[in-house]
């Protein structure tokens, strides 16, 4: 099989705080192939965003550090690279868009300026040419009147439009991988659909891979090809999307899927919304053994003794559970 585009092996990103070491990402491995869309799901605080930012080394290094692991981009480990080297990869090879479009753009520069900045830098074009390129990008993401809008400031755009601008900015150098950290969480449902469609369109056009981080299972089901489920800093299940929803093996995944509100199922009956009882364990002092043990309905004594390793139970389907 061809070498994966991005291969994260055993990544541990920890943070030093006054209360101790927070193990935000504690041994995560995942990989993305060329042109594939990988979904990364989990509830808030499970380490998905830290993982995403670790790839581009956007973590504040004084409190944060890479305790262990490798991040292989096309076979090359990114962790030992210095800033100058990383800057060649950022936006040009790997781009990222964030969750909050309202605050992710610099309010004092025009939208065109901010997009052109990337183009100028990585494609070595002149200012003028870069601005033209910026207008083209705006057109690509379906912003009406792109030539005029390119001179507008972020506050003159709505949330959904700003996210489009972010996408335009991220894609302006045609990166091979787009990391999308909860790109639609802060948007209205109707706009969500539009943005997801846009991302799909861009993916097909540029043939790029996407790492889609979200906590919405519905989004994952619709847009991804493979899924990685994270819990408390670790990966608990990994499978192609069909297999994940058809045959979820990990109790946490099962809980996640069951808790999706289903209008069709409960119509006519008073079915209760299912949720997973309990709360996420502390990342400061993680419990020994399986971290989901406290909330698992199938918990056994063996669960609390050792962390179950990720085992392959079917082709491409891995689970970290002793069941």
């Amino acid at each position: 099989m061809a070498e994966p585009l991005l291969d994260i092996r055993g990544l541990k990103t920890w943070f030093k705080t006054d209360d101790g070491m927070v193990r935000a990402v504690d041994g995560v491995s995942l990989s993305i192939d060329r042109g594939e869309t990988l979904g990364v799901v989990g509830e808030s605080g499970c380490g998905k965003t830290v993982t995403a930012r670790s790839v581009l080394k956007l973590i504040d290094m004084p409190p944060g550090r890479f305790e262990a692991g490798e991040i292989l981009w096309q076979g090359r480990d990114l962790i030992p690279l210095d800033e100058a080297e990383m800057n060649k990869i950022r936006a040009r090879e790997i781009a990222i868009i964030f969750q909050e479009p309202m605050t992710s753009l610099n309010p004092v520069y025009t939208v065109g300026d901010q997009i052109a900045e990337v183009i100028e830098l990585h494609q070595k074009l002149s200012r003028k040419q870069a601005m033209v390129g910026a207008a083209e990008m705006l057109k690509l993401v379906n912003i009406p009147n792109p030539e005029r809008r390119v001179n507008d400031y972020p506050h003159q755009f709505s949330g959904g439009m700003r996210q489009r601008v972010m996408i335009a900015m991220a894609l302006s150098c045609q990166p091979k991988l787009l990391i999308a950290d909860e790109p639609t969480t802060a948007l209205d449902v109707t706009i969500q659909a539009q943005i997801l469609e846009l991302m799909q369109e861009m993916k097909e056009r540029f043939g790029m891979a996407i790492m889609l981080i979200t906590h919405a299972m519905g989004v994952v089901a619709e847009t991804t090809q493979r899924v990685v489920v994270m819990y408390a800093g670790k990966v608990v299940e990994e499978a192609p999307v069909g297999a994940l929803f058809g045959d979820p093996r990990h109790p946490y995944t099962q809980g996640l899927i069951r808790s999706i509100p289903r209008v069709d199922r409960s119509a006519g009956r008073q079915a209760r919304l299912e949720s997973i009882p309990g709360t996420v364990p502390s990342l400061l002092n993680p419990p020994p053994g399986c971290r989901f043990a406290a909330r698992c309905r199938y918990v056994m004594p063996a669960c609390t003794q050792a962390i179950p390793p990720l085992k392959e139970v079917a082709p491409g389907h891995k689970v970290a559970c002793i069941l």
Partner: protein
Amino acid sequence: MSRQYVIRKILIMIPSLLGISLVLFTVLAMAPGDPFEELATNPAIPPEVRAALRAKFGLDDPVWTRYLHWLVAMLQGDWGFSFVSRMDVDKLILQRLPVTLIVIGSSQIIAILVALPVGVLAATRPYSLFDQVANTLAFVGFSLPTFFTGLLFILVFSIQLDWLPFVYRANIDATGWQFYWEHIKQSIMPVMVLGLFQGASLVRFVRSSVLDVIKLDYVTTARSKGIGERKVITKHVVRNALIPVVTLVALQLPIVFGGAIVTEQIFRVPGIGSLLISAMLANDTPVVMAVTFVIACLVVFFNLLADIIYGWLDPRISYR
């Protein structure tokens, strides 16, 4: 930046000026004693002139009329006559104003030139040695009252080292290059005293403003574009961090004027600050009123300037 914004700001200035004039006038009206009492004992002023002055200033009229008369007179540029200096007050003030403006202007520029790089550097290396030293020095800077710093400077640079003159002379009989050099030499100390004081408080503010901005989302976005940390700071962070700093500089202007008054006294700079003090000590009321009013107006005007610069720096404000 829209013209509407500028016009709106200018219009707002007018009630502020009126308000200040009202406050000043009320204060004077409430003051016990006759502002022209001094003139009664001054043998050079015959009683008829005094009576004429009282009539002219309408001291016997009700308060409202007096205020309006005074306001109209002020606006027409008729600021009265100073018996102490024997010239029209407006001429007197115009004579002394430029020096004050130059000293204040240069000190502000020095303050910003020092505070900006130091503040930004300290913020990008928080808690480092540089940061701690800068922070402590800043505290020392703004805890030293300007009059003490001024005296210290005189002690060190004039008395001990004899490098700089400490009495300001308006007429220096030298020509060309020498002339300017002498002027600069005697201005260094007052400008530095004011500049360092202002710079000290600015450093802390710049630092905290930069620290606030550095945490924001769009800075991470900028980093993710691969433009390099240096450019992230100088292009993205500084421009945004400057905005509250500008506001602060404007808000601190009243304090700067106070500092200028003190430095002018110590270094005997012939500006409007020392004019104010000498007028007060000589009971020269028309001058006192006029100078206070001028200073207050200048502050309002500089606030307007700050608003305009703010609007230029932050497009969110002026595009409404």
